[in-house]
C-alpha cells in the first residue's frame, strides 16, 4: 500500500472523511466517526504524530503534507 492509501485506511477510509486539508506540516482532517481513526496505522504510514480533538484529526507528516494530501485526493 502507498503512504496515501495507508493514511486513508488509518483515517477510517474515504467514507469517514468529511474534509481533508493540507497545512504545511500536517493534514487537517474532519472525520465522521473519530472511533474509526487508528493512530497506530497512521504512525505506521509515517505520521510523526497524531492529534485528535473530537472529530478533528491532525496527522503530522512533515513538509510533504501537500503531496500526501493530493495523493489521498486522487484515491477518493
Amino acid at each position, binding site marked *: 500500500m502507498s503512504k496515501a492509501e495507508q493514511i486513508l485506511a488509518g483515517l477510517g477510509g474515504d467514507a469517514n472523511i468529511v474534509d481533508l*486539508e493540507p*497545512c*504545511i*506540516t*500536517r493534514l*487537517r482532517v474532519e472525520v465522521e466517526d473519530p472511533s474509526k481513526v487508528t493512530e497506530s496505522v497512521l504512525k505506521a504510514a509515517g505520521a*510523526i*504524530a497524531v*492529534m485528535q480533538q473530537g472529530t478533528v484529526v*491532525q496527522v*503530522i507528516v*512533515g*513538509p510533504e503534507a*501537500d503531496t500526501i494530501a493530493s495523493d489521498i485526493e486522487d484515491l477518493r
Partner: protein
Amino acid sequence: MADLTVLAPVGGVVHALADVDDPVFSGEIVGPGLAVQPTGTQVVAPVAGVVAKLHPHAFVLVAEGGRGVLVHLGINTVQLGGAGFVLHVAEGDVVEPGQLLVEWDPVAVEAGGRSAICPVVALEAAPDALTRLASPGAEVSAGDPLFRLA
C-alpha cells in the same frame, strides 16, 4: 557543511517554541526553533535558499545542504484562506536572506481571534544542532540573527 545563520523573518519579541499555542510547534515535533511575536508587516527570508513550499500563511525555504526552514505566520491562519497575505515570491524562486517574501497584518490576525506568533523551525534538525542568537524576551528586527544551525 558551514553553519547556517537563520534570521528573524519578522520583527518583534522572541519566544521559545514552547510558548506557542500549538502542540506541533510547542512540542518541536517538526523540529527545534524559536518564535517571534510580530510587530511589523513585512516578512523576509530567514536564509538564502529555494522557496520549496509557499502558502499565504506559511513557507519552507530549503537552504544549502538541504536544510529546511519553516516559517508559519500565526497559528491556525490556514483558516484565513490567504485573505490579508500579499506574496512577493513564488514556489521555486531562489531568495536571498532578508528579501521581502510576504506582507501581512498581524494586528488584524490577532483582532480575528488568532495568535499571530511566528514559529521559525529548523525542519527535522536535531535539537542540539541549534544555537540561539537571540533570547526569549529580546526584541528583534526583521533580518536580525535568530539562531544558528550546525
